[in-house]
């Protein structure tokens, strides 16, 4: 009896294969190439110009047989939707394109101002584009120029830009990690507006970009991180500086490690503190129709450098340094929040989301015009920096006189 079922499985499986022969999803890897970067710019009469960075895997660093050619080539195409533009790349590209390894998507400032919705749907719907793709806004230059930057020893632009943003975010925090995932999060969660990283290009000379001059001592063109871009309802409304972005990350608990330098006593003497862990606890409540936001920042750090010879081998030295650091941080934080409130009137800090999560019934009536509420909110900031150690030396070596 069991032979019957086994026979059924085998015969029909074979029958099916013969009936529709061919492997439908087969993509021969050696005849295909990877898409590693995507740049979006406005094209003629309302269409989108899509520039793709296509990887030439033989040249990448992982293959020593490369002949020194550029690891990636740029191809661009114009169409009404992004998908069509990407698929029609084969008009002038011989290989099959694999879309699943895109590392960075750069949106031109002009498109971002009109709104991201136009292209976000494809990116979220497709199973090929991963959630951890870096989404950036180009500031002041065309988006496709970003992908033209050459990197030494076989590194392609897509990978280079992503690791640049990643390292800058982890070490100093001047740019949000701006994953694709955050676009979906902010679009859905009420009371938090989108904040994406912004990049720009500083070109020393307008010579045509090539791999050779990327090997020179001071490379001509470099991708520079230009802070972050604030959005309202998925429309770009302005850019924040790197310092302001760091403060926004501090408030939203995304700041990993950073270095704060603050004046000691006004005569141009500065101290630098390396903050290892920072945590912010927020409390948002509506007091007679006006949101009261109280922020409590705690940070642990260590002394990185100190121009003045503070007595940090004594307890009062540490307390003085703590106090100075806390005050400086508090000023810059309140300044940033005030600036965002006045200049952009958009809640990139996520206070609205916090109110929505914790006081649902207070938030719902104001949910429609939360940004205006945020603009006139009263903010109370309280910072306590705790400096734990001063690494190898306790006092400032250079200024120690034997007899003072």
């Amino acid at each position, binding site marked *: 009896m*069991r*032979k019957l079922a*086994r026979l059924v*499985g085998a015969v029909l499986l074979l029958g099916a*294969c013969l009936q529709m022969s061919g*492997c439908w*999803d*087969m*993509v*021969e*890897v*050696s005849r*295909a*190439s*990877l898409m*590693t970067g995507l740049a979006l710019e406005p094209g003629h009469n309302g269409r989108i110009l899509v520039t793709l960075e296509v*990887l030439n*895997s*033989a040249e*990448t660093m*992982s*293959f020593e*047989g490369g002949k020194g050619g550029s690891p990636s080539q740029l191809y661009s195409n114009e169409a009404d939707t992004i998908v069509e533009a990407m698929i029609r790349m084969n008009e002038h590209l011989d290989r099959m394109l*694999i879309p*699943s*390894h895109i*590392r960075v998507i750069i949106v031109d400032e002009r498109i971002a101002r009109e709104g991201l919705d136009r292209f976000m749907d494809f990116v979220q719907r497709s*199973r*090929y584009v*991963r959630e951890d793709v870096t989404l950036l806004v180009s500031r002041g230059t065309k988006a496709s120029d970003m992908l033209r930057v050459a990197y030494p020893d076989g590194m392609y632009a897509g*990978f280079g830009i992503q690791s640049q943003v990643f390292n800058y975010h982890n070490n100093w925090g001047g740019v949000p990690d701006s994953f694709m995932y955050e676009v979906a999060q902010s679009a859905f969660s009420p009371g938090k507006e989108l904040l994406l990283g912004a990049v720009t290009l500083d070109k020393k000379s307008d010579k045509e970009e090539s791999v050779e001059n990327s090997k020179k001592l001071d490379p001509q063109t470099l991708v520079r991180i230009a802070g972050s871009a604030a959005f309202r309802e998925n429309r770009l409304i302005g850019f924040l500086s790197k310092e302001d972005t760091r403060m926004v990350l501090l408030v939203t608990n995304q700041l990993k490690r950073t270095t704060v330098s603050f004046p000691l006593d006004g005569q141009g003497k500065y101290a630098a503190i390396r903050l290892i862990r920072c945590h912010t606890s927020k409390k948002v409540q509506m007091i007679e129709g006006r949101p009261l936001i109280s922020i409590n920042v705690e940070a642990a750090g260590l002394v990185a450098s100190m121009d003045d010879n503070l007595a940090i081998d004594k307890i009062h030295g540490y307390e003085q340094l703590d106090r100075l650091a806390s005050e400086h941080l508090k000023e810059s934080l309140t300044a940033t929040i005030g600036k965002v409130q006045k200049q952009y009137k958009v809640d990139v800090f996520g206070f609205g989301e916090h109110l929505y999560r914790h006081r649902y019934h207070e938030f719902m009536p104001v949910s429609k015009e939360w940004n205006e509420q945020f603009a006139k909110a009263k903010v109370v900031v309280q910072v306590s920096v705790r400096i734990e150690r001063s690494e190898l030396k306790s006092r400032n070596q250079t200024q120690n006189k034997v007899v003072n």
Partner: protein
Amino acid sequence: MATYRFRQDRIENELRAHFGSSADLSLIPIRLADRDGLLCFLSTMTNSTFLMNNVVQPLLQASYREILFDSAEALDSLRLRLFGGLNTRLLEDPGHLPEWMTQGYAGLLLDGQDRMLLIHVQELEKRSIAEPTAQNVIRGPKEAFTESADTNMSMIRRRILNENLRFEKHVIGSKSNTSVYLAYLEGEADERLLNPIREKLRSARLTGLFDSGGLENELQSNRFYLFPTTYNSERPDSICSCLLDKRVALIVNGSPFVLIIPAQFTDFFKSPEDQYQWFVFGTFIRLLRYVAFLFSLTLPAFYVAVTCYHQELVPTLLLTSIMAQRQGIPFPAVVEMFLMEITFELLREAGTRMPRLVGQSISIAGALVLGEAAVQAGIVSNITVIIVALTAISGYVSPVYTFGANIRLFRFALIVLSSVIGLYGVILGCAYLLIHLTRIETFGVPYLSPLSRFSGKRSA
């Protein structure tokens, strides 16, 4: 009819007719007192010195002593007084004489007697007990079974000094009459298991049986099982541990591999060495074997599925290096994988079939030269060679050699499936394997039985 009187000359002619001109037939006429007698035996099956000292000498000396050779009870007295210590037997029907002679018996005939005396003088050259070749271990006994069933049984009896240990003799093979011994512990092995095996041995339709392997197919209730349902081993200590574990052993005369019925899936991953070491290390190694089994089964199929169908499942850097290597490879991944798998099978087969001295050089040279040259010539990519080598090595991790053979077959099936419908095919292949494993039953004991001990009678 009147009792048949043995006549020396008539028997002689009968035997000559029966055995034809075979060189090892020896017929020695002897004269006892005043009676003619005949000593007939096969020289290849008997130990001639033993025969001379223990049978012929006493006979000659006895002939002038008082034993009366013409009385009816002459043979009985001879049997008791002269050949007391030997294994003797009386035979009435001359027709069976050739059959007993082939089993190592020497026939002693006196004229006019109505019976014949058969003396067991079988003594065959045996290979001495050597080290195991297939399943050797570092820590643990180094004894291995030999071809002769008697030494094998003595090795088992030596280890299990228990009076309940039984060895049942069965004869199998219509032409070869090989003796098969069913070894089990009374009270331990379950009757529900023993009876079907006995019945199966009786009803075996084999004409000849020269190794326990031939018996395996016979015992397997369904020929389409992908996995071996009988465990075989040439190490007495693993056989004894199975016997204590309520199982039955089958010792085939002439084969160093003893069978264990019923076998479970986990037996093929147990090496006796695991018990003799620190148990934590033992379990770790056993886990490693399971992982290696999975590796050798699914790795090539998974590689083909991932590189050809689901590129998005591979981290970017890994995929870039794969693509870089595969530039300019003429074959698609599937054909390349098949080519390499078949070359490895070829190498393995050549390595084992080649005589020992030449064998080593072939397998090493083959693997290196072929692999390297193929990559240099750009026919095969490096990563495929790595994957195929890894799967080939992890295929031999199971202590039982025959288990490895089944994996290799199924690996090809998985590669085909993954080339048609990608990872979905691999997943369904593994599902089929899993379902197949849960359905295999040997004599009522499910194959994955540690999960459920005897689950009642055999389900329909």
